[in-house]
């Protein structure tokens, strides 16, 4: 450990003298300009329709948090295979758990108020989900981001994602264009299952949270096994 401490100090001393080579631009004026533009657009959108202003702000904040935390759905599924790291996987599981609790609250209160249709997307489930997810997973690892990650990296200035978005939009448009055909041939007759309606609210919600907890624990164990080093 003495080797480590001494070499770290040497590295830091060297780093300080080395780091003066590049001048960093002051980004505060850009930040002020961007905030002003965001505010103006938000006010204009809100004037068109109040919900648009809200979704605008949510989108901006979501992207900001995504970028600052370096949260990555792609890495959450790729890293366990590639490097054995599951910290992002665990983060995604936590996000699912929060969404489970939140949507349970939204849907349950809607049902209590006597809503005819349960809020949220409840789509037909079947083998097509697994196939589509696998295709998307392969694509997102190669493209360097999923939907949110691609948009976030476009904002960061990565040219690769500006190209990836073209593929994303092209594929989505093509799929939307042929959606009727896909639906008729593959999932029109698949059931759209809303678990709380089938299993009852307590079993569905707490069962899902328990399952997510188990997955979290498994992810933790997996990482420990993959990354134990021989010291």
């Amino acid at each position, binding site marked *: *450990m003495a*080797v*480590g401490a001494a*070499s*770290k100090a*040497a*590295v*830091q001393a060297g*780093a300080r003298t*080395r*780091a003066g*080579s*590049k*001048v*960093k*631009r002051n*980004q505060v004026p850009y930040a002020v300009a961007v905030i002003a533009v965001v505010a103006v657009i938000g006010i204009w959108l809100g004037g068109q329709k109040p919900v648009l202003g809200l979704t605008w702000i949510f989108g901006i904040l979501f992207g900001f948090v995504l*970028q600052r935390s*370096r949260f*990555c759905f792609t*890495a959450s599924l*790729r*890293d366990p295979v*590639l*490097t054995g*790291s599951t*910290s992002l996987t665990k983060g995604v599981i936590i996000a699912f758990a929060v969404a489970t609790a939140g949507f349970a609250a939204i849907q349950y209160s809607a049902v209590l108020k006597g809503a005819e249709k349960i809020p949220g997307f409840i789509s037909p489930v079947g083998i097509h989900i697994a196939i589509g997810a696998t295709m998307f997973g392969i694509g997102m690892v190669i493209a*360097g981001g999923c939907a949110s990650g691609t948009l976030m990296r476009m904002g*960061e*200035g*990565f040219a*690769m994602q500006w190209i990836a978005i073209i593929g994303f939009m092209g594929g989505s448009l093509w799929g939307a264009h042929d959606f009727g055909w896909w639906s008729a041939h593959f999932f029109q007759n698949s059931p759209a299952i809303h678990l709380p309606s089938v299993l009852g609210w307590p079993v569905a919600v707490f069962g899902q949270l328990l399952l997510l907890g188990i997955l979290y624990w498994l992810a933790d164990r997996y990482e420990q096994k993959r*990354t134990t*080093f021989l*010291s």
Partner: protein
Amino acid sequence: MAEHRLDCYGEACPIPLLKAEKKMKTLAVGDTLVVLTDHSCAMKNVPDWARKQGYDVDLEETGDGEWEIYIIKNH
């Protein structure tokens, strides 16, 4: 106590991490690996990986969106 530089400018994640992993295996104990990257994902996942392996890590932003990651192979 040698220093090895690994230039990963222009490479998207996970390439810098994979290259750093491979390179670290070839280093002697006490050597330092300096990973140069301009990808913000690598700025996060390379130090995380190195710390999990038990190495000392130092991170320096040397320019707008350019980082140098110092990893000391202490064991």
